[in-house]
């Protein structure tokens, strides 16, 4: 499977636009921050990981993504970094 980052960004945005019954009507792009902008909780990151695994029909090493997030001084992440993570693992794994 070879996808561009733009395609992956579109997938992530469409999942987040209506995520587990919570609608988000603002712009979603690679600068949108997961916690600060979308107002999501840490547990949403876990569930988003599962949702994306279902979407792509494969296991992805989200524990690496979570541990990286946990090491940050400011625990937030722009969606662009999630897209890069997905791009890397959808390419190589």
């Amino acid at each position, binding site marked *: 499977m070879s996808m561009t980052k733009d395609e992956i960004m579109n997938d992530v945005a469409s999942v987040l636009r209506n995520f*587990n019954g919570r609608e988000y009507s603002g712009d979603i792009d690679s600068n949108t921050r997961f*916690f600060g902008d979308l*107002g*999501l*909780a*840490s*547990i*949403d*990151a*876990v*569930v988003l990981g*599962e*949702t994306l695994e279902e979407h792509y029909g494969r296991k992805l090493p*989200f*524990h690496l993504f*979570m*541990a990286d*997030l*946990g*090491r940050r001084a400011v*625990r937030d992440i722009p969606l662009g970094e999630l897209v890069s993570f997905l791009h890397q693992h959808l390419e190589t794994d």
Partner: protein
Amino acid sequence: MPRVTVEGMKFYYQQAGEGPDVVLLHGVSGNMAIWPLINLMPALAANFRVTAYDLRGHGYSDTPPSGYTSADMAGDLVKLQKALGLGPMYVLGHSFGGVIALHAAVLYPESIAGLVLSDPYFPGLRHLETRVGQWSGWQEYKEQANRAGLEVTEEDWFDVGQLFKQTANLPAERYEMFRKELGIAAMDRLTRLAATTCGDDVKAVAGLTEERIRSVRHPALALYGEESPFLATCRYLTENLANCRMALVPKAKHRAHEENPPAYVALVQKHLREMAGIAQGHCMGGAA
């Protein structure tokens, strides 16, 4: 999304690894995401089958209006154990999660293999803790709350229910202020719990008296931040439980797992391996 239903209530959980069973319990107003965030879950999965779930009223689990005492939630734990087919469990609980873990050892001794008590404070040992109102974590929260117009005093640290209620009943503009101070997700958590008996339930002794606490004979670890506000409890457990060791996490207060994750993970790994009789061999790095 992995969920297990016990008595009509759905619990969100995650599982990783193979080996003896370890179950991880977060504290009040937290969720299970903390365990992958601090890398504890993958680290333990090298030796154990690790199950982490959202307590009732938290994360992606259901929110019943009542039943939030340590006795109720110890019941959830063993029912979930049965539903998932887990063997005797090593239970790590942080803060109130530790109260639940110890209460489960009292009520269902055969279900529990060992305990890691991560900075719990026990309503049944309240008399030991006289200086908690001055704890910096509480001071910080109190300042946030006061800036947003909540009347929170030094004594209220114990009264989570009062806090939930005040939060839920703030006038709209104050609510927005507080929400900005605290963050949207945190605010949503408090509002959600305010609609339940959680706040009052977690300060109830609920049968976990000092006598019962002292009666626990399971292998246990009292794991506290070296600057925890609850060090009197830590000493008490170490001195009074038949089989309880103590470990302090350097450079940490009440939330050692977040304040010093590498040291915390290394200590948990070391002690759980010892309890389970697993040789200290292939360490996954991240030593203190």
